[in-house]
């Protein structure tokens, strides 16, 4: 039996997908039998005195595993305090750190964690490409394990009656098809590409509608030196919409942000999830996981976490469009997009939604996640061998340059970017 200390924020994250992720991960841990758990709240409002009390408590309890469950704030204070508390001890708890997409925002802080070489550390990544990405940052590739973020099957599984009901609510008849996008309406999510794709699709397939769920943001593309104030991307998209024909415009539906409870119904009612995201922190793709859990076929970019979703048995229902890193940015292959679209669109009526749902849930249900975590917790952990020179380069670049991934002379993507993000693209 293990004594497991979990650090996370008891208050839901501002980042919508992380609200579900942390909650579902917690359920995965709690489903592991034969262990004792203690939960410690840690957030930006946690005073150092409180944190120290947490550390004292877990030490007096003799915790043998410490889990960093949440994505922010950065756990540097937790790790530092732990290290100080156990400085003179030869026996220390094993550390397990769940890695999120915002790992790339904190290179400086990870660089300050060199003391972790005194600890046994296991890193959990949500997708195969994120594993590759993180392995570049560490001297020991074997300390990284795959642990996809779990989905709660009670909310996400295919149900034909929900589909029928949702389509009735939308006023969609059986001959019409619905493309859906859910997530932030953001530059790196390539909403403009999605809208252009939809307008082209309408020429051959006028029966389609596009449903967009999400809120606009101003994240732009800071790694590429692109900053936008709040509202600018909305204005750009509206100008793009104005250039489309009225027939296309009338079939674009904006739903804004909706609660998590409404999303399963939306996935059920739709016929195809489309996402052309090239977002730098796309470590996983929670929306894709949820959509697949509801039996929805997907047309996606083959970028970062999305690359993990082409499961055996449903390959023809999950299409991944190649992304290449070019001097001026990430390029989505138009040829592959057209090819995969032409393959997928005509046969959407035959999509085996029950099979897509079951296959996907077999991969990232809470039960499956729990088994994976249990295997890792029971495995022998090895001493952390430190961060690689790449992480140091990234830390220095981010501290010294406003645009660390852009060459200041040519204004093109530099080698540091390619070295970092080559893990996120298809190699062949």
């Amino acid at each position, binding site marked *: 039996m293990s004594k497991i200390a979990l650090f996370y924020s008891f208050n839901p994250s501002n980042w919508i997908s992380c609200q579900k992720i942390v909650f579902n991960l917690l359920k995965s841990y709690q489903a592991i039998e034969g262990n004792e758990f203690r939960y410690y709240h840690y957030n930006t409002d946690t005073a150092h005195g409180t944190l120290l009390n947490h550390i004292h408590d877990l030490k007096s309890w003799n915790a043998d595993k410490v889990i960093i469950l949440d994505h922010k704030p950065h756990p540097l204070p937790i790790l530092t305090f732990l290290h100080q508390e156990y400085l003179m001890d030869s026996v220390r708890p094993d550390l397990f750190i769940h890695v999120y997409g915002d790992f790339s925002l904190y290179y400086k802080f990870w660089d300050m964690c060199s003391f972790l070489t005194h600890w046994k550390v296991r890193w959990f990544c949500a997708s195969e490409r994120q594993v590759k990405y993180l392995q570049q940052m560490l001297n020991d590739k074997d300390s990284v394990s795959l642990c996809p973020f779990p989905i709660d099957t009670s909310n996400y599984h295919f149900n034909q009656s929900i589909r029928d009901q949702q389509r009735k609510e939308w006023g969609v008849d059986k001959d019409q098809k619905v493309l859906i996008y859910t997530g932030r309406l953001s530059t790196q999510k390539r909403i403009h590409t999605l809208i252009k794709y939809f307008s082209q699709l309408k020429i051959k397939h006028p029966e389609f509608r596009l449903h967009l769920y999400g809120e606009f943001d101003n994240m732009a593309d800071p790694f590429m030196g*692109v900053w936008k104030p709040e509202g*600018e991307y909305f204005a750009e998209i509206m100008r793009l919409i104005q250039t489309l024909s009225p027939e296309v415009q009338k079939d674009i539906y904006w739903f804004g942000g909706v609660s998590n409870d409404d999303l399963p119904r939306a996935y059920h009612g739709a016929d195809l999830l489309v996402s052309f995201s090239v977002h730098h922190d796309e470590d996983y793709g929670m929306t894709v996981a949820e959509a697949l859990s509801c039996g929805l076929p997907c047309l996606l970019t083959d970028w970062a976490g999305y690359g993990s979703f082409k499961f055996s048995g449903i390959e023809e229902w999950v299409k991944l469009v190649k992304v290449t890193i070019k001097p001026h940015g990430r390029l989505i292959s138009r040829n592959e997009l057209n090819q995969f679209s032409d393959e997928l669109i005509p046969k959407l009526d035959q999509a085996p939604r029950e099979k897509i749902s079951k296959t996907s849930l077999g991969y990232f249900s809470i039960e499956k996640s729990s088994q994976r975590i249990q295997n890792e917790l029971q495995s022998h952990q090895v001493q952390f061998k430190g961060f690689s020179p790449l992480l140091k380069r990234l830390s220095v670049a981010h501290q010294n340059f406003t645009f660390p991934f852009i060459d200041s002379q040519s204004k093109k993507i530099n080698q540091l970017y390619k070295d970092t993000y080559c893990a996120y693209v298809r190699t062949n």
Partner: protein
Amino acid sequence: MLEQINEQLKNPSYLNSNSNYLGLTREKWPRIGSDLYPLTADYFHSLNPFYSYNAVNFDFFASFPVVTLRDGAFSLGTFFCQSLSKLMNSEQTILVHEDCEQFVPDQLKSRTLSYKMTQPRRIEIHEAKTILMVGVISDQVLEDIQIIKEKIDLLSRMGPKAKLKIYLQTRKNPFELLYAEPQHTNSFFYEMIKDLKVKPDFITSEQLAGMGFLKETYVINLTSDNFINADSFTDFILASKGATIHEWSEPSAESPLLTVPISLFHRMDICEIKKKSIFNELVFLRKRFPSTTPLFDPYFYAQVKYLFNRS
């Protein structure tokens, strides 16, 4: 004017686009905007929302054919006083908030229109699951205690299960040099909070920024009037996420000259200026109080406030 606006909408030239912002580093800008963060934080729409007190380089500012001034009445009136002759020589179209249009000089009415924000979809306060009161504790912003009391009285109409959140951070008085820290607002405001029947959650700037899915949220703006700031960033960001802003309205039955979508949930209605101009009285005040820094002259400020309240 409308042609110029339509041309701007089709072929935009952006005053506050990231690469084109005034040609001056931010360190040289007046601190007024930062003093009232987040009310005065930047946002974007196609008609160049901007604050007149940030127009430190007038020629650069005037090179943009259409500008929407987010100013409250005080800085707007002062801007017109200081820059009237330059504005008369430019061909810019200026949009001012409807509540401040009485400060537009007659000489500029041919190139000035008024705007207000409207929301086609609004909920009533009793329908809201969350009531959010937003403001900053600054004597100049929360000046009129009677208005604050009236807004708190609105809470009597909230639903029995609705939650109350309050965003209230202490800020400096933006138009004051010597006693910039708030002197009296803290104490009387906390006195009023004591009488609230509903227990509120006080939220931080980070929590405010992270709020999402606000279609069942009703926002009450505690800034007393549009004297300090007319077009608030917090209203913009909350309305963009679907919240109903108490101080706004549904689109009026009378059609505006032009409507510009600002987000999925709100828009800017542009109309002609209707109010009689009191700019000449403002000019008289300026001559009576010829301060070199009118933005920080307490006597001038008080007189303009009196003029605004009377109009």
